[in-house]
């Protein structure tokens, strides 16, 4: 798996890239992210990257990941 093809990279791209991120927080089973523009969030790409669900409310996008969300969040931190 190339660095840009791992789950964290794919999820970051699907959320609209680092430019679109205001903040990201791991919440037990979900990645809660606040984005600048929810319109560029690609839900099918999030699902394809392994998300078990996506809940969008305003500028907050919750991505259902499971307990691995803590690891994912620290990988995202490295990418940002």
């Amino acid at each position: 798996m190339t660095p840009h093809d791992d789950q964290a990279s794919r999820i970051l791209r699907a959320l609209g890239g680092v430019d679109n991120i205001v903040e990201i927080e791991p919440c037990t089973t979900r990645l809660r992210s606040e984005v600048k523009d929810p319109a560029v969030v690609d839900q099918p790409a999030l699902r394809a990257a392994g998300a078990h669900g996506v809940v969008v409310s305003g500028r907050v996008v919750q991505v259902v990941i499971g307990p691995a969300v803590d690891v994912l969040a620290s990988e995202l931190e490295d990418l940002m």
Partner: protein
Amino acid sequence: MAPDYKHVRVRDYLRGLVAHELDVGATIPSERELCERFGVSRMTVRQAIDALVNEGLLHREQGRGTFVAPPRTDMELRLVGFGDDMRRRGMTPYTDLLDAETVEAPWDVAEALELEARSLVHHVQRLGWADGRPMALEESWVSATAFPDLLDGAPDAFPESLYATFRDHGHDPDWGEDTVSASDASTHEAELLQLGAARTVLRITRRTFAGQVACAFSRSCYRADRYTLWVPLTAPNPVVTPRVRAAMTSTPGSTEPRSAGTTQEVRR
């Protein structure tokens, strides 16, 4: 404010009696005693008692009086089945299998179980009892692809625990998500749960996962007069923010590969 104040005083007094002095099933002081003790009208006393009956702290029986209600069971949402959950609380569970059949998944079930539309799923409906009283009505859907033989023994030899069956198939449930909401039971639900005048139930929707596999989707309704939701709290995790956000958004020529990724690139 004055009438409210009196009724609150009576209510708080009764709340204290229930918490510290009276046993479950004991009668509370009569309306007349309470009127005299607080120098209030019978209407005020009734208002106080009604509030505690509504809260489920007291239990009124027509013609017999008002008693201290049994405490609700603390419900901690955990990834265990009904039977194990009740045993863990020291109660004896019993499960009635109301329905077990293999059907085409309704769209919401297919979505929750991450299956193609109209995939085959096992539909199981059960009524859970604890210590001889109906507690919860649970409807579950399980992928028939992942667990083809789940209903083979039904109804006579239906497994008591779905979770144990998942484990036997090499899928050990290790995480899930619940949503909880309160509403009134339907007439059918109220009948099965033997509800009286109080019809409120806690509705729990659950997705159960073993790793990346969605094992089950369920909708349950629990008697709100028997359960109180117990939720352990922790402080939120620290948030992660882009380190270079300010610099990148203010630089028009920013062509970092990772920030240039558009939604189109990852679409199939």
